[in-house]
């Protein structure tokens, strides 16, 4: 479903926009932590390295100069011919990690096989042979080991002293330090991600509250409000404006519901006068001239229709205003349905054919919690609907559904009118399952595309399928959905086996009649399950005490 307020953009939005706000906050934290940890890590690494190398260079120079001084004094005192520079070098106090080399009278000498004069960097050698002391750090060999070479010219004896220090231990230390810093950086970044996640959750939590509140309000709980946290100045604005919006909405809805209720209510007084006066006229029907009789008949029919419409509207507006009282009473479902069909057929008039009432297996003992008056209205509306659109109801079936049945949760008839009336509370049959009451007709059926609309207010089927002159209020099925939902049931539309429409009400089973004392069901056990109990309006299982009430024929 397209959001009508969304600005259409060409192509896909940039990646950044496609991230949720939570992901964006987390990414910012990750990038921040990454930048911070690696800049701090790099800084510490290079500072440490610079300091350690400088220290080693200074120590190396110190040692090289001391050795050069020692060599100069030795070489200047001993006999030039007898001097063995290699021995001299060996006798020098060199550290374990340094090697010495000497160029004496143009000849190179070395303290170690691994060091030859040629391995001393040429630049350094030239500088020293040129008469100035020099230091150079460089890498050498296949393993590119870091070294410091210090060269000291000893011009008084025509010699140049070189000492090469291995920095491999320092290199190792620095490598370990580097790895430690990288590890610290990764850990910091992960912590940053976690912190970002936490922060985004934390900062989005009020939005989740707003969302929950909006859902509750959409579900009809208009008294839902956001809790205001005065300590949080950032959220006060949102909370206040949201609550103000809901206040305004509630006022409007209530005003509208009250208006509807008032209108219908005000219509009742003139209607009462009209209908009472009409009955006076109808009592004298036979004495009127034929034209007046016809007019009276038209007047009577439309007045009753108008009366029903006002009644339905009032019922609807009460439901909207939430001011309904439901008087649930536990009754035997079979008796209820039989009686409701009888009452519904009575109000339809004598010419209507009574539908067959088909009782499914195991339904006779089921009891349901219903508001009998509402159930009577439901059945009357369904029968009337079938009479108006489907040529009259053919079958009213009562079927038991065990608890935990599958596939019945589909509410085809969930009203699209936004107030969720048709779906009802989602009471999946608790424990004892549900009983389904289906009313079938012989009409053209209901187009699957229209099934979601039949429970909407003032929905009327296609004109071609309509019989009669449309005596319904257009609220019949909407009220069915309303009443059923108030009785914790659900309603849906499906195809009848005959091809007509079948409207099904599912109501949770309250108890079973096992403990029946036999007063209600004296004849019921004589009939086999699934039998067809169509027939006279006085069903065979009339309760004890049906001693022809003489005041009940109104």
């Amino acid at each position, binding site marked *: 479903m397209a959001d009508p307020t969304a600005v259409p953009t060409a192509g896909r939005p940039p990646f950044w926009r496609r991230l949720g706000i939570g992901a964006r906050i987390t990414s910012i934290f990750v990038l921040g932590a990454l930048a911070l940890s690696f800049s701090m890590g790099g800084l510490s690494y290079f500072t440490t390295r610079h300091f350690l190398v400088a220290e080693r260079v200074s120590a190396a120079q110190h040692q090289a100069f001391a050795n050069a001084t020692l060599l100069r004094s030795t070489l200047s005192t001993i006999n030039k011919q007898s001097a063995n520079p290699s021995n001299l070098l060996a006798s020098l106090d060199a550290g374990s990690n340094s090697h010495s080399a000497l160029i004496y009278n143009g000849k190179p000498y070395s303290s170690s096989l691994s060091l030859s004069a040629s391995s001393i960097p040429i630049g350094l050698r030239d500088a020293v042979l040129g008469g100035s002391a020099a230091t150079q750090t460089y890498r050498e060999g296949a393993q590119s080991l870091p070294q410091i070479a210090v060269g000291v010219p000893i011009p008084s004896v025509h010699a140049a002293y070189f000492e090469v220090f291995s920095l491999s231990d320092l290199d190792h230390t620095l490598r370990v330090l580097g790895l430690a810093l990288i590890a610290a950086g990764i850990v910091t970044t992960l912590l940053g991600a976690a912190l970002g996640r936490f922060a985004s959750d934390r900062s989005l939590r009020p939005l989740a509250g707003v969302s929950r509140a909006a859902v509750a309000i959409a579900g009809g709980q208009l008294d839902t409000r956001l809790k205001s946290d005065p300590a949080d100045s950032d959220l006060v604005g949102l909370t206040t404006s949201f609550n103000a919006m809901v206040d305004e909405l509630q006022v409007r809805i209530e005003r509208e519901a009250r208006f509807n209720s008032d209108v219908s209510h005000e219509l009742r007084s003139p209607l009462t006068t009209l*209908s009472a006066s009409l*009955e*006076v006229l109808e009592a004298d029907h036979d004495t009127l001239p034929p034209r007046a009789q016809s007019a009276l008949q038209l007047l009577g029919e439309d007045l009753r229709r108008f009366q029903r419409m006002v009644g339905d509207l009032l019922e609807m507006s009460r439901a909207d205003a939430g001011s309904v009282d439901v008087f649930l009473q536990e009754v035997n479902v079979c008796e209820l349905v039989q009686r409701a069909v009888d*009452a519904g057929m009575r109000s339809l008039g004598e010419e209507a054919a009574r539908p067959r009432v088909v009782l499914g297996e195991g339904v006779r003992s089921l009891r349901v919690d219903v508001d009998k008056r509402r159930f009577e209205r439901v059945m009357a509306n369904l029968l009337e609907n079938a009479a108006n659109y489907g040529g009259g109801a053919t079958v009213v079936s009562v079927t038991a559904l065990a608890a935990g049945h599958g596939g019945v949760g589909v509410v085809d008839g969930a009203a699209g009118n936004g107030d969720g009336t048709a779906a009802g509370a989602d009471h999946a049959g608790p424990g004892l399952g549900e009983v389904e009451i289906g009313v079938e007709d012989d009409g053209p059926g209901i187009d699957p595309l229209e099934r979601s609309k039949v429970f909407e207010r003032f929905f009327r089927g296609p004109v071609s399928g309509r019989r009669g002159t449309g005596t319904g209020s257009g609220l019949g099925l909407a009220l069915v959905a309303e009443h059923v939902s108030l009785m914790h049931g659900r309603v849906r539309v499906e195809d009848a086996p005959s091809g007509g429409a079948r409207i099904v009400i599912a109501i949770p089973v309250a108890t079973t009649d096992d403990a029946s004392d036999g007063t209600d069901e004296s004849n019921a056990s004589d009939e086999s399950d699934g039998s067809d109990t169509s027939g006279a309006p006085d069903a065979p299982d009339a309760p004890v005490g049906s001693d022809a*009430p003489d*005041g009940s024929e109104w």
Partner: protein
Amino acid sequence: MSGRILVVEDDERIRSSMRLALEGEGYDVHDAASGEEALDLFADAPTDVALIDLMLPGMDGFECCRALRRQSAVPIIIVTARADTHDVVAGLEAGADDYVTKPFVAKELAARIRALLRRARPPEEDDPGALTFGTLQLLPEQGVLRHLDGEEVHCTRTEFRLLCELAASPNKVLSREQLLDRVWGYDYFGDGRLVDVHIRRLRTKVEPDPTLPRHILTVRGMGYKLVP
């Protein structure tokens, strides 16, 4: 069947049409526009049935109902705008015997009045005979409920009729539907609250402790029974 009917209704047009319709059914109709006027009219001449709109200016329908009930056991029908509110129960508790909702059909109203008038006469052949329960004695044929010491217990005719029906089959459960049918003449879809409120009213008169009934018992999900 004829009888004198007191119509209490503030809307003049409804009053006139009700008068026309009820007179058409053969009743002698007297009308009042307010509760005060109704009480005056009631004092003047015997009334068989009172029809009271709940929404009245000044003294409202409930108060009018209570005032009538204080001085008489006359059958009272209240006229209410809505059936599914507390108004109905409040009206019944104020002493009404039955109710109709606006806009009513005159035939339906006439039928309700007929049922009340029928009941207002002493019960006939289905006489359960005298029954004693607790410290009370019910004498249906004389229309009397009295303590064993002879002191009479005042109850409305509907309450009395209800008690008689329960007493006709002691210890047997009668469903709300059966009681509605036998006492009020309603079919299966009659309002069970009529029974419930009348049982409650009856208990305050016959039970030593109405909150812990010992004679008129509720059988959950079934109905009521009288235990002597």
